[in-house]
């Protein structure tokens, strides 16, 4: 399972970076979204995958017994997803406004502030 996810994460990083290097700003934003997903999956995988063992406390005890999945990576990812969602929504609106005011979605045309 880990090795499959490793390939998925690698693929997501590759796709995200490739899209970020394209000239269209829409593809740039999609690339950023993919990078965010890749990072989330990375945390998930590194937190060790455990199948079919929810971290629940059995009745009458104060701590989960036996083998149980680590709940912390999911809490981290949830936070990162929420933040990522907000940021991506902002980025999309920014792209729309930028296309309106510059008149193109080509990043190569957006260099008046670089000179």
């Amino acid at each position: 399972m880990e090795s499959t996810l490793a390939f998925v994460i690698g693929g997501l990083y590759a796709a995200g970076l490739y899209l970020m290097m394209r000239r269209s700003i829409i593809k740039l934003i999609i690339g950023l979204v993919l990078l965010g997903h890749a990072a989330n999956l990375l945390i998930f995988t590194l937190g060790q995958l455990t199948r079919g063992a929810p971290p629940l406390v059995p009745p009458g005890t104060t701590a989960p017994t036996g083998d149980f999945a680590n709940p912390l990576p999911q809490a981290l990812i949830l936070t990162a997803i929420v933040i990522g969602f907000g940021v991506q929504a902002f980025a999309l609106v920014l792209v729309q406004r930028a296309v309106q005011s510059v008149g193109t979605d080509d990043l190569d045309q957006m260099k008046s502030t670089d000179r």
Partner: protein
Amino acid sequence: MERLLVLPILIPFLTAVTSLLAWRWRWLQRVLGLIGAVALLLASMGLLESVRLYGIQVVQMGSWPAPFGITFVADLFGAMMVLVAGIIGLAVTVYSLVSMDAQRESFGYYPLLNLLLMGVCGAFLTGDIFNLYVWFEVMLIASFVLLVLGGERAQMEGGIKYVTLNLLSSALFLAAVGILYGLTGSLNMADLARRLPGLPSQGLVTASAMLFFVAFGIKSAVFPLFFWLPASYHTPPVAVSAIFSGLLTKVGVYAMIRVFTLMFVQDVGYTHSLILVISGITMLVGVLGAVAQNEFRRILSFHIISQIGYMTMGLGLFTPLALAGSIFYIVHHIIVKTNLFLVSGVARRVCGTYELKHLGGLYRSEPALAVLFLIPAFSLAGVPPLSGFFAKLILLKAGLETKQYAIVAVALVVGLLTLFSMAKIWNEAFWKAQPHGEPGADKELVHEPENLSPLNKGLYFAPILWLAAITVAIGLRAELFFDLASQAGQQLANPDIYIRAVLGGR
């Protein structure tokens, strides 16, 4: 004591919320912003005083003991940074009262400014690496909106670059946090510092250290990751530029110093030497970039980059004295750089432009402004007896002590070139006569000059005077500030103090 530690986060938060509630009443938002800024300054002064008297302050959120809960820590370095954030917050708020246009004010400028300050203070005070990521995001989102608020074309173009590269840096930061968590099973920085040396796979630790270096390097604009900065910092209104230039990149530097003094100290020969080399190139490239520019704020933006090199230089040398030099430099730089941006804003009002070609005659028309420009400009270049001289002196001394002559030479040359750049601004904007005639091709960049009423002028000059006075005070009482900085440097150089304060005897 515990209340003091959360106040620098709580005050901007409450200010932001109350001014959001006062959405329709602009005057009320201004009053609230001012009250909040004064309160933040007082709280941060109190915090620094209590850290100075009683040592490192720690609060465990929700009383979950470290390393399980989120910890807030104020050591001397963190508390000093919060105090500077308070000083800048007040200066920029006062400056905004006159310089910000009604449209931006009615679309939430003051709440955003306070959310930005909250993110910055949170980043300075947190003791948890994932929480640091969250504070970075809080700060970034507020800065995104502040940067593009107003929707001018230049702001949009600069905004795209700023947003993209900062989001990329956040993704790398998150990945690095993930790897660290996978390696150690902990997120508390003190706990990480304790566990990392015992790990079998030191190569992975260094890999994650380098990911942190790239992520914080993008945020703090070191070579070769700085390109978003000169593309975006000159586009928003000057009050926004000023607070960005003062605080945002320095949060990146702060985070870099924090992780590379506390956590990643196992392979100093590799990591810190790399930081030192990068610092040298950053200084040179930044200052050479500034030489080629002819716009007031763009020159200043490139100087931010070259000055970042000095701050990371202290980290690269990695002795207590060098770290003290870095801290001294950061404090000095935030105050001076913000002040220079504020001065450029007044020049823009009086002459109608930021372009050096069309500026001129300010020495004749605004002699007080000319003097107030010279103080931070000379301080930036490192002329005694101002704050920049002592900051550079400490770093150079540390460089000579560790026999890193190359970086010392670079630092000296860059200081000279900085002076050249400041002299260029002085000659063009202040000394030469005001040029007449048509702006020609630069029509978009030249606006009608304004006549400032005495009250407005007072509000413009008050924050500039306040920051200039602090620069002079740091220079004249340098031994006092050096004492504080070297204590903070000692704390950074001995992470055991920090670890013991957070984790107690465990």
